[in-house]
């Protein structure tokens, strides 16, 4: 009886220590797209309050998605920003390898990056083989073309002008 109680106590204590240890390392996420906007609310046309960039580590603030497709994060890299981003813009970090510029890379991210180099080489190989250099240059211009960059404010004006209603017909 006494042994069982001691065992129970030990198990509970061990569990609590493990639990608090996990919580002291709250969910770290890493931005996996070039840039994404931080919104004040998890909804279309939500006010943009900041921006996070590729490789930046952010903290999953509440650990539980309250709105499908969005995650509430805290960014600490430049200035502290707390807000919502698309969940698809982040991946979980695993073993952190601190980088000098304040960003972090995980083992999985490094592996993925290595594979990415390979596929990037695949793009070069495909372009070379099919002699697509001119077309690739046009694609580069398209990516940089400011006409393809549309802000939330632009969309808001466009929606109002065209009498498009949020939430549908």
């Amino acid at each position, binding site marked *: 009886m*006494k042994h069982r109680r001691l065992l129970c106590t030990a198990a509970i204590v061990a569990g609590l220590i493990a639990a608090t240890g996990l919580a002291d390392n709250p969910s770290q996420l890493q931005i996996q797209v070039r840039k994404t906007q931080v919104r004040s609310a998890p909804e279309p*046309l939500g006010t943009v309050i900041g921006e996070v960039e590729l490789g930046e580590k952010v903290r999953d603030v509440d650990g539980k998605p309250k709105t499908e497709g969005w995650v509430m994060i805290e960014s600490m890299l430049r200035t502290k920003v707390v807000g919502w981003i698309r969940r698809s813009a982040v991946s979980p970090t695993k073993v952190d390898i601190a980088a000098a510029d304040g960003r972090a890379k995980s083992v999985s991210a490094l592996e*993925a990056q290595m594979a*990415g180099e390979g596929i990037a*080489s695949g793009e070069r190989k495909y372009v070379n083989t*099919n002699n697509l250099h001119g077309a690739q240059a046009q*694609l580069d211009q398209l990516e940089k073309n400011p006409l393809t*960059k549309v802000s939330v404010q632009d*969309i808001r004006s*466009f929606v109002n002008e065209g009498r498009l209603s949020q939430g549908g017909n």
Partner: protein
Amino acid sequence: MRTISKRTISNGLFAATLAVIVVINGCKSEGGGGGFLDNVGKVAGNIGNTIGGEVGTWFGVAERLSGPAGKALEGGQFNDNDEYHLGRAAASQIIQQYGLFKDDQATAYLNLVGHTLVEFSNARATYAGYHFAVLNSDEVNAFACPGAYIFVTRGMLRLCASEDELAAVLAHEIAHIDKRHALQSIESKRWNDLLVAVGQEGARQANAGPLADVGADMAGDVHKTLTTSGYSQKLETEADKESVRILRAAGYEPSAMVNVLTKMDQELKTNTGGFGKTHPHTRDRIDVVKREVGNTIPKPLVRERQARFDRALALSRSKG
């Protein structure tokens, strides 16, 4: 008496240990917010998430893909950056084949309509964002390359009679991007090759030879699907259903999708090239979309929307 005494000691130890943990955590959380109970709550929440099926959803839609593509995504062997480069290769070939049509007004307008749909669609974020452009071709067609490059031909712009119909075309292409349909067109063999190449020490060197070969082959598969063989009926239907949802969410008339498909069906009777090559089952698709739209009475065209459509696409929709 002895037993009681030991139990008391045991309880005391438990309480003392708890107190120590509380103190330790209290110190740790100082200035950082969230005390011991908060942390326990967070842990419980995390465990709840895991049990609730959150694991595996971090890569956006990886869980929606089955087979080797899904495994490569979930395993981290293929990520958004890879998809971006794959898409750039396929998009470059499409530009080479059709040529971009330089019309700033149309490009700006197309991107406004497209980004509005993306905003309301809840579509996944992509590595470099979404880009929309006009192709200089009379062929009635539209393409969605991985990495979110969406191209619409001048022929397709002419087929569309309103912003709502153009939105239907773009929503369909956005759905293909969101659901990573192009990745499913890659031959299974390539995914196996990718796993082998990633595992090879040689691939970790700067030349990345085996991976480059796999990447180039994948790009070839995607280009072939987009321009020649087309998606399966199942994937087209999935994109059609999703496009109706996106149109509704953004406030566009969902029956515009029926209009576009009906016109395409007419087009197929006289022209089997272009769109006809890659979209052979239009009648079936019309039936599916009609069911999705339901029996709602279509709203009349909005004057402001029609005016900007006519104005912005005047050059691109013109003959010659």
